[in-house]
């Protein structure tokens, strides 16, 4: 029994190490998923994995088909006359599916076609794309550190988290970065793709920094979207009605008047106040 457990642990360890040890160009989504997928993590982190599956991070490509499709069809093809290759696709996918940095140009082109096809209603294409997302490997290894040119990049085989609690399954390291709002800003702010350009895609963090923090706000992204109400890795956002209700308060004042002399015309003066309780502008992403 003991030897079976050891062998099982070795297998899990192998699959957890492979994602960060193998760097190469993958030609199929199958290969990519086998190497960088979330299945091995689920073995030990079942609850967290189940939470994550409810989040939009788990659907970061299929939920954003419109934007990525517009980038391909109206941006790359129509306006900029650029090829749908890995370099150009990564301007979207560096956030929506960061692990595509390991895709070959031919796989990137195929994924571009799948995006357009899925947007047009092809369920098969959508099913394929649903396997690309922001998964455990992305946040806890690939992009777990900020300021990597100063602090150094994340190390292969090591998974970063707020506790850094050791485990036999893989290397661990405590990360302060991963608990900071700056960590989320990598994608939820002015975005710098791998080619060094500057993109206005998501500007949520801009309003967090310039309007919320500047006015004395102290909560981090993780405070509201993870720690509050034990939301964990579900990262609820605007797609959860309860979250929007929390974010926007409403006040209605109305007074009846008569606007003309004599009998007068019945009229109402209506004042509506919408208070944004969130740490960022609404709507945004």
């Amino acid at each position, binding site marked *: 029994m003991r030897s079976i457990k050891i062998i099982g642990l070795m297998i899990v360890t192998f699959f957890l190490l492979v994602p960060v040890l193998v760097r190469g160009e993958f030609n199929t989504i199958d290969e990519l998923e086998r190497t960088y997928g979330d299945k091995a993590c689920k073995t030990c982190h079942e609850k967290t994995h189940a939470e994550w599956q409810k989040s939009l991070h788990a659907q970061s490509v299929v939920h954003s088909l419109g934007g990525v499709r517009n980038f391909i069809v109206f941006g790359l093809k129509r306006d900029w006359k650029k090829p749908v290759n890995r370099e150009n696709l990564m301007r979207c996918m560096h956030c929506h599916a960061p692990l595509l940095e390991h895709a070959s140009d031919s796989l990137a082109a195929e994924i571009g076609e799948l995006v357009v096809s899925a947007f047009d209603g092809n369920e098969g294409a959508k099913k394929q794309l649903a396997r690309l997302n922001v998964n455990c490997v992305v946040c806890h290894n690939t992009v777990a550190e900020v300021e990597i040119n100063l602090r150094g990049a994340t190390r292969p085989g090591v998974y970063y988290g707020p506790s850094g609690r050791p485990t036999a399954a893989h290397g661990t390291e405590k990360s302060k970065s991963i608990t900071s709002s700056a960590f989320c800003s990598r994608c939820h702010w002015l975005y710098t793709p791998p080619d060094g350009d500057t993109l206005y895609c998501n*500007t949520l963090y801009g309003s967090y920094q310039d309007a919320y923090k500047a006015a004395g706000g102290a909560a981090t992204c993780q405070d509201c979207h993870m720690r509050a109400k034990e939301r964990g890795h579900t990262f609820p956002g605007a797609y959860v009605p309860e979250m*929007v209700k929390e974010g926007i308060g409403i006040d209605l004042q109305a007074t009846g008047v008569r606007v003309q002399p004599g009998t007068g015309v019945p009229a109402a003066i209506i004042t509506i106040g919408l208070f944004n309780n969130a740490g960022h502008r609404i*709507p945004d992403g």
Partner: protein
Amino acid sequence: MDVTARTDKGVVINIGKKEYREIGVDLDGNERLGAWQIKEIIDLTLPPGKTTEERFVAEFPEGTKSVDIEVLLTYYLTPGYQSVVHRVGKKVGFER
């Protein structure tokens, strides 16, 4: 946000409508002004930590004794998916 009033005689009157959104696309997700970079030009969203106030003055037919004002705040997440955030109402009378 949609503001309507139902008079005591059952007539529904549309008072006003306001949209809070990113400028690049309309509520159906269609490009309106070009690429999303247009976001830097104008911001139509609700800013954090602030109250955005809207005021409407609505006139009703002679003889109306009261109206029920209703404010419906709807969040459009993606085309085809929307949820009601708030539905609040207030009765206003015009009796002398």
